[in-house]
């Protein structure tokens, strides 16, 4: 995360580090005691579930729990060229034990409104500058939802942001997801202090540049797909 701050244990209890051969590769979000939501592009060249583990807690070096992966479900219509349908489900090989520091994030309804200008948080162990290296302690970044219209301005992504995608960042840049944050959650709080995952870190032009916010998979657009695959 660029321009973020250190997260404390229990701040984002649904945050998962997905590790390939025991080194952090992508983020993910715990949506049930067996399923993690992440991004399809994380698994493009890394598709063997036996090489993956999921860890919980704010430190990737000394995690609170480690769980193996039994299967990886990538969206059938994932298109790397256009980043369309950049969503995947990871099934764990056993149930996760919930406690104060590890439990699920809520999934939004398909029709849940995500208002431009509203506050959201993106979290991860990604680099803190473009082309930097991942970090061992979880970071959090406070961003604002940016409408697709604004995001697609010629100075922005000029139409590359499609309806299944969501932009978030700051107009002046500076706070953004970065390399290694992919697959991680963009979350918002509702009126009863419950937190919902509204985006999955997907792509963007470098990190934290003005007019080039982070682009996320819009989870509400895939709510039925998630139910169809997991029953949640």
């Amino acid at each position: 995360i660029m321009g973020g701050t250190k997260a404390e244990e229990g701040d984002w209890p649904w945050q998962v580090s997905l590790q390939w051969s025991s080194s952090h590769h992508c983020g993910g979000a715990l949506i049930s005691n067996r399923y993690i939501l992440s991004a399809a592009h994380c698994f493009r060249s890394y598709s063997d579930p036996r090489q993956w583990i999921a860890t919980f807690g704010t430190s990737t070096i000394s995690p609170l729990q480690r769980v193996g992966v039994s299967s990886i479900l990538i969206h059938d219509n994932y298109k790397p060229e256009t980043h369309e349908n950049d969503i995947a489900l990871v099934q764990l090989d056993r149930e996760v034990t919930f406690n104060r520091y590890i439990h699920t994030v809520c999934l939004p309804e398909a029709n849940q409104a995500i208002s431009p200008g509203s506050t959201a948080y993106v979290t991860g162990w990604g680099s803190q500058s473009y082309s930097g290296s991942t970090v061992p302690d979880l970071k959090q970044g406070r961003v604002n939802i940016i409408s697709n219209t604004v995001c697609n301005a010629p100075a922005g992504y000029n139409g590359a942001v499609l309806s299944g995608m969501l932009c978030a960042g700051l107009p002046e840049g500076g706070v953004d997801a970065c390399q290694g944050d992919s697959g991680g959650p963009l979350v918002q709080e509702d009126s009863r202090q419950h937190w919902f995952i509204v985006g999955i870190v997907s792509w963007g032009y470098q990190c934290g540049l003005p007019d080039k916010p982070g682009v996320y998979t819009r989870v509400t657009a895939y709510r039925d797909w998630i139910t169809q695959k997991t029953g949640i």
Partner: protein
Amino acid sequence: MYRPARVTSASRSLNPYLVFFAVVAVVVILAVIIGLLVYFLAFDQKYYFYQSSIQILGKQYSDELSSPATEKYRTLSGSIESMITKTFKESDLKNQFIKAHVVKLRQSGNDVIADIIMKFKFTRRINEASMKSRIESILHQMPNNSEDLDMHPTQLIPITGQYTVQLFTRECGVRSDLINLSEDR
């Protein structure tokens, strides 16, 4: 035997400074003891959590009430929480009541049962049994049939902070400020 006429003897009057310091020392010690007693008896407060199940008569259960993500769940939970808050804020426990939160809506026959957690702040020396019955009686005073909610408390259980965490972490999307039922700012 000679007895000298004048024998010098130690003076019998105490040193006034010594007396002054002794009095001050005793007063300070007494003040500290009384202060500690007052603090521990009156001001040392602790949080208490209670779980209650409230039957909502005449409210049809549906799948929409199974997840906190739906507007219907938010609206019904919000109404129940504000009703409970209003009832306690108008009672003699208004200064002790902190917050109530619906942690689950479930079906019971033709009605809905709302599992709620309530947080209070009492001094450590309360009589827990009498406080429990006090809270129960206030819950039973909740107005029925207002805002088309017909609410009937069915049970009240004192629970530990640890069990509160367990109840909350079964829900999705909760962070420590909700788990602690932190006071609204």
